[in-house]
């Protein structure tokens, strides 16, 4: 398992490196080049030159990349045009809020989707299975933000059961009950799309495993059907799901950003959108990098989990996270 994890870690580092190159290249491809992206518009020509030298933008491209990386590694994400604030000060407080939302949605998805999918795999084409396929068609076709708006209209505006938006009621920061009330709608919205796909995945994965020879062996041993499903089949069916969990992280991050904008959730996604409208490029770059690091770490975690669930990984037979 050690060798496998080392290989995956190296792959993760390579991917991370490529992401930084990619982001860096994007600034240089922008019309007007990095100066336009990194220096506030409207400064005097003298100030422009000074800033350009400070940022090292007069150096050759590869030196610029190294300097930029050097600053990143020291935790320096740059400053904003407006008020010259350090990007980190704006960014870091939002990260936790986003994580709260994402983890809640993720847990809700798994808690509902896995048992549902497993159940459907034992009752193929039953009522529950057909209902799940309706949910998945809707989940794939409905714009999540629209679903959010509709929920707001029904549960916040008409019924007044739930708070319309934000993370806390003013003055109630830290009250877990208040947080939960604020989480209900965003989590529902964020979960729906994932719910749709994970019910499908877990059902398909279970069906494939239930068709395997070793399941027949288990039955031939006299193992009870419930134990066949939950012990013999489930462990195997979880293996591809773990991989998909890792691969779906970027989609979760994107979905969270959209949900945050609908519900005014003070997270990274909402910050990203508002900074994009204000053209604060340094914040945008920082967020893209931070989320990529997060996604890559998440994938690495999925790989480790994969190695835990599947003993065959020790031989490195199943190396790829991708099919």
């Amino acid at each position, binding site marked *: 398992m050690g060798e496998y994890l080392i290989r995956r870690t190296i792959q993760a580092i390579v991917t991370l490196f490529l992401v930084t190159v990619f982001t860096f290249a994007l600034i240089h491809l922008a019309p007007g080049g990095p100066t336009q992206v990194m220096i506030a518009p409207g400064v005097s020509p003298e100030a422009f030159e000074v800033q350009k030298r400070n940022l090292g933008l007069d150096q050759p491209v590869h030196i610029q990349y190294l300097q930029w990386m050097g600053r990143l590694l020291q935790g320096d994400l740059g400053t904003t045009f407006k008020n010259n604030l350090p990007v980190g000060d704006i960014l870091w407080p939002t990260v936790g809020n986003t994580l709260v939302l994402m983890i809640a949605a993720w847990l809700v998805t798994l808690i509902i989707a896995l048992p549902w999918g497993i159940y459907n795999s034992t009752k193929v084409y039953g009522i529950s299975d057909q209902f799940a396929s309706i949910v998945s068609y809707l989940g794939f076709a409905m714009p999540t933000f629209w679903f959010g708006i509709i929920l707001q209209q029904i549960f916040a505006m008409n019924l007044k059961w739930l708070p319309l938006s934000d993370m806390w009621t003013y003055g109630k920061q830290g009250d877990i009950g208040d947080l939960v009330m604020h989480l209900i709608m965003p989590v529902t919205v964020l979960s729906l799309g994932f719910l749709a796909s994970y019910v499908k995945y877990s059902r398909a994965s279970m069906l494939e495993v239930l068709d*395997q*020879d*070793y399941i*027949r*062996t*288990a*039955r*031939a*041993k*006299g*193992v*009870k*059907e419930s134990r066949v499903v939950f012990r*013999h089949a489930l*462990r*195997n069916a979880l*293996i591809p799901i773990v991989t998909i969990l890792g691969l779906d992280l970027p989609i979760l991050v994107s979905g969270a950003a959209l949900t945050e904008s609908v519900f005014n959730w003070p997270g990274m996604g909402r910050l990203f959108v508002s900074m994009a409208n204000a053209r604060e490029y340094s914040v945008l770059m920082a967020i893209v990098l931070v989320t990529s690091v997060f996604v890559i770490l998440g994938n690495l975690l999925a790989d480790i989990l994969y190695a835990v*669930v*599947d*003993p*065959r990984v020790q*031989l490195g*037979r199943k190396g790829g996270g991708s099919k």
Partner: protein
Amino acid sequence: MAEKVLEIRGLTAGFISDKGLLKAADNISLEIMRGETLCVVGESGSGKSVTSLAIMRLLDYAGGLIVDGEILFKGEDLTTKSQEEMGKIRGNKIAMIFQDPMSALNPVFTVGDQIAETLMIHQGMDRKQAMEEAIKLLGHVGIPAPEIRVKQYPHELSGGMCQRVVIAIALACKPDLLIADEPTTALDVTVQAQILDLLKSLQQEFGMSILLITHDMGVASEVADRIAVMYAGTIVEEGTVFDIFDHPSHPYTQGLLESIPGYETTRGSELYTIKGTIPRLGELPSGCRFHPRCPHATDKCRAMEPGSIQLSDTHRTACWLYQEEAGVKKS
């Protein structure tokens, strides 16, 4: 006379498709005595695997069903039992081993866990006892260093080793009947012989009966006491190993024997093959199911299905060629 362990009477089993019922096994009757080895021989598609799955009542899970007949195991009819009741018999009184040992073991559990599970279910052992017993069993089926192997996963073992593990699982509760469905087909030739020897010696030790399913007459000749030859869902000939090999009566059996390389032929002569292929279910020919491939087919064969004819106390066949000769009416 020896005790009948298993008696199958008029078993009809198969699958439902949108074309109707496909009878993979059609009116099969067989019996197995205590301590005896019965080989069911036939090409793929002859219905031998369906028959074995029907006995285990695993056919239900493979999308098939038993339509008619009785399967009497020590006098009890298995066809009317619930799956729960069958759970107490499977792995305990009747055990089964399968064709591909590599895929027959669950990849995420250790070998020891998989053996111990049977013992824990049927013998009420706790985990520790069961693991100790598993080590003994592994040694018994000829696996060296069983205390190390018991903690390993199936992918760490060779195909032959895996089949030994599968046998250990099957024998854990000392069953009365072992059903082996092509147990050596997926293995190398040298390993095949080892596994067959192992089965024979374990049979003598435990005194169990074996129902061995194979397409290979060679395998049957090595282990069988009696042989039943299946073709397109029916048993065309049944007899002791001497009946079948010394006096093969059904043209299909004769064909099977002649197509064994080196069987009563001189070196250098062309290898015999039975022309044509086994018919698909749902497209069975009229009359005798073998007539389109039979060198002796007559109009009668094309029109009517032959009944079973007793050639001797131990030998019966289903072929019109012997009808008059034996003077026995269709049963």
